[in-house]
């Protein structure tokens, strides 16, 4: 990509015409209005999110253990016994920081999917660092969730070389307004986070097919590792992912929320986490702005709509923008 491409910009009027939502407008016009601060912890704390999802019968990764005290790090090996693979996650981490995936282990050596080997002491140290708040949103003491490792859905196999893609749906006042699949790359070290180098592909809300993608903030047509075109793939279990997102958003009580799920061949979409301040790169991945869709939802007075009508409205939105 040439320097000229990197320097190319749009005047504000052009962005407005495309209906692009900026960070300031997101915070002032939407988040502050529909996300009461007292409900934020439900999205920020993955254990609370999981509890809400479980209440509503939405599948979540099975929790093996929750580590809360420094003493728990010492008894780590006991808690991992009989778990051939697992994930360590800070309960209040953000942007995938502090997550360790273990693919196989013999109780002494723990292997991550990228082939890195960790000792039991390394894991204990990581748990201890996480507990003391190294990765938490506010730097306050945190908890560590030991949970089931989800496998990649086979439908994604041709698309990515490693890592597990996830599906993000942004829900506004109970209506899904935009979606994307996040595809890990070698650059993102198998993680599905955009700023770390994952590719995002927009999703047609009506059909569940992927649109073109974005990588490091710029449009791409093919996955950088596999060369497979990003567009035109069916997202497995799309309809159920959409329903799960609407359901969980209602349970959380947040009016503007990003719900991340991972498709599972047996259980359907499994909820990974909710984000009360979902990013705006999803607009680049979808090639259209959020504003017209948000305004359409506002005009429909969605609180008075029933479940089926909300789903229908979500599908209709794919024609806007």
């Amino acid at each position, binding site marked *: 990509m040439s320097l000229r491409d*990197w*320097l*190319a*910009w*749009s*005047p*504000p009027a052009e*962005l407005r015409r*495309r209906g*692009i939502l*900026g*960070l*300031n*407008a997101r915070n*002032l*016009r939407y988040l502050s209005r529909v996300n009461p601060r007292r409900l934020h912890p439900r999205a920020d704390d993955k254990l609370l999110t999981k509890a809400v999802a479980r209440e509503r019968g939405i599948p979540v990764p099975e929790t093996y253990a929750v580590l809360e005290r*420094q003493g728990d790090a010492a008894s780590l090996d006991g808690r991992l016994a009989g778990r051939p693979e697992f994930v360590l996650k800070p309960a209040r981490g953000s*942007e*995938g*920081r*502090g997550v360790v995936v273990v693919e196989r282990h013999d109780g002494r050596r723990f292997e991550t999917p990228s082939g890195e080997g960790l000792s039991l002491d390394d894991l204990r*140290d990581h748990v*201890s*660092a996480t507990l*003391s*708040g*190294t*990765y938490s949103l506010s*730097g306050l003491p945190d908890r560590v969730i030991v949970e089931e490792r989800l496998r990649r859905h086979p439908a994604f196999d041709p698309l990515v070389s490693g890592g597990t893609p996830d599906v993000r749906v942004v829900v506004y006042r109970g209506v899904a307004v935009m979606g994307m699949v996040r595809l890990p790359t070698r650059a993102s070290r198998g993680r599905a986070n955009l*700023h*770390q*180098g994952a590719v995002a592909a*927009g999703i047609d809300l009506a059909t569940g097919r992927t*649109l*073109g*993608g*974005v990588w490091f*903030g*710029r*449009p791409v047509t093919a996955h950088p590792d596999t060369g497979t075109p990003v567009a035109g793939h069916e997202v497995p279990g799309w309809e159920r992912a959409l329903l799960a997102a609407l359901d969980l958003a209602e349970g959380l009580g947040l009016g503007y929320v990003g719900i991340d799920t991972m498709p599972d061949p047996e259980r359907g979409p499994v909820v990974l986490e909710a984000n009360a301040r979902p990013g*705006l790169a999803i*607009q*680049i*991945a*979808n*090639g*259209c702005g959020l504003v017209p869709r948000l305004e359409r939802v506002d005009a429909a007075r969605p609180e008075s709509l029933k479940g089926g009508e909300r789903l229908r409205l979500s599908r209709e939105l794919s024609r806007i923008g």
Partner: protein
Amino acid sequence: MSFGPRWTVRVGAMLVIAGPLLMGLRWRSLRDAGAPSLWHVRWEAHVSPHPGPRLLKLRLPSAGLRRLELDHPRFPGTVREGVLELRLPAGKGGGIRCAFDLEAPPEAPSVSCEGGPAPVVRAAARRGAAASGSGGVLDLTRLPADTRRTVGLLLILPIGALLTALFRNVVGIRTFGVFTPSLLALSFVYGDWRAGLVVLALVLLAGFAGRGVLERLKLMVVPRLAVVLTLIVMCFVLCLSVLEGSRLSTGVDGILLPMVILALMVERAFIITEEDGGRIMLRLLAGTLALAAGCVPLMRWEGLGEWLVAFPEIHLVTLGFLLWIGRYSGYRLTELWRFHGGRA
């Protein structure tokens, strides 16, 4: 309860108008009262070491002298009949610094040294804002010169914060911590900024390297931060000592980096490098330094400090601008690049 956006913008406008209005009124009343504008004067006389004992004499202006402050760091001095005297023992060098306010323009300092070579004299004078004869609490110009300097610096801090808000919410560049850049800039106000920059780079490098070693020791967060802080302080003190000895730079004593802030910055930089890669860390560092660089000229601008001391009500304007920025829901400048193109 919340006020609508229009309301906030109106209050902002009122503040922006009220500030200069109030200032103008006070200015006029000061002028009408015939208050003279003061000259802020600083004299420094210094003699180098010499085999014999000497007596350094500095004659102070006799008319209109106000608020005299003396500083003779090493040897006792006295004021006798308008003459400042400092006795220097054999083999030693030293000097006197004095700061005072004058109602008339100052003359050149008259200084002599009995028993040794002529002293080096540095004189600086600046015309300040008008002083009101009777001081109310709002009249900060009645404070002693050194306190006034501190107050001036404090009053510049909100302007740094305004610049920070502008940089983050309107331009859209991210930095390490919200007020790290303005606090960094504040530490460059006194002393030589080039030396300060070198010291900052060394301190950050030492902190970062130290943090890398600490990663292997696996400490908990607070002790780890404390170790980084200790390393940073020690590196800083060492730098000062080296610079002082080598005489490469003068005024090193003025560089006072915000150590705690730097320790936190090193910690965040390290975690971000580990988790998100060096590219993102460098981008944040560049943003932080760019904003700090933008704040430095503002904070070194002594006239601005003097004005703010004379008319603290200028900060009503600052508050008004902050309300406006706080309600700015348009695109950030960087978003014009970020959202260009897309998959349209």
